[in-house]
């Protein structure tokens, strides 16, 4: 692109900066993973998970790294890979659940993204079956100007 005196680092779309995927490990357990690009971080307290049908049994995100923020005080953030398991309130062998993930993060260069709300249809294996295939988050909805 013309005009810029010194090319600043590229800034990624939120979906690429925080690549989300999920997998049904067994009839009652999902694995959720964020691959967070270098130079980006997610806030732990902005993570939110829900499923339908049913509920999640108390999803607890792993501890993050403590960051002393001049505005928000002590906040926990994640960098690199964030992987956690979510347990459904009841097994749903051979079916699929709709997983809704909310996340919010920033880039070290000084930009922040609004809360991203992503929806994945996650298949669940039957008892004794291998884990279901990995599901990657769908691209963001098209807006008026796409």
């Amino acid at each position, binding site marked *: 692109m013309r005009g810029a005196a010194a090319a600043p680092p590229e800034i990624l779309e939120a979906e690429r900066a925080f690549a989300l995927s999920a997998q049904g490990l067994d009839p009652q357990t999902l694995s959720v993973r964020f691959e967070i690009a270098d130079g980006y971080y997610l806030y732990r307290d902005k993570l939110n998970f829900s499923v339908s049908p049913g509920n999640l049994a108390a999803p607890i995100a792993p501890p993050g790294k403590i960051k002393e923020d001049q505005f928000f005080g002590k906040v926990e953030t994640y960098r690199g890979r964030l992987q956690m398991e979510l347990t459904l309130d009841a097994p749903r062998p051979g079916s699929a659940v709709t997983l809704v993930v909310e996340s919010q993060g920033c880039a070290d260069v000084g930009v*922040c993204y609004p809360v991203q709300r992503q929806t994945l249809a996650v298949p669940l294996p039957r008892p004794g079956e291998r884990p279901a295939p990995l599901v990657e988050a769908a691209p963001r909805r098209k807006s008026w100007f796409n």
Partner: protein
Amino acid sequence: MNKKIARTTVLVMAALLALAAGVHFGQRGLGGPWLAPAAKDASALLAVALPDIEGREQALGQWKGKVVVVNFWATWCAPCREEMPEFVRVQAELGGKGLQFVGIAVDQADKVQPFAREIGVNYPVLIGGYGAMELSKAFGNKLMALPFTLIINRQGEVAHTQLGPLKETQLRAIVGQLL
């Protein structure tokens, strides 16, 4: 309350539609590859009216003829908060020469008010909600990230767009040429 939100939404949508309806898009010279070609003509933005933190509706058009710095921000965005005291300083210093900052918060009024008071904001801060993010996108913020700042010259044209913090030296250099 809901009526006000509905009205704001209608106003923002009207501005977006006006923009989509054929205002020409020109390439901005400044900025990185994440900045989409944005409208050079800021009239669609200047046609927007949004409530300020007191709930009074403010039309951006009232500042036409000044050098207007429109800063899209939010309280949940630390880098946005970090640069705002700088804007307060520059507004105090250059306001008399025709510089006008306008903040548009992609946020809720009850979150914006305490912060605006805390840092002593001396320029209008308007409450745009999430619709403001779409508005910023129409002016090149294709990643819909914050802070995002537009500098509009006295002729009502976008002179600069910036995703990420605007350093004070850079801000002063750009604004100095336009005042």
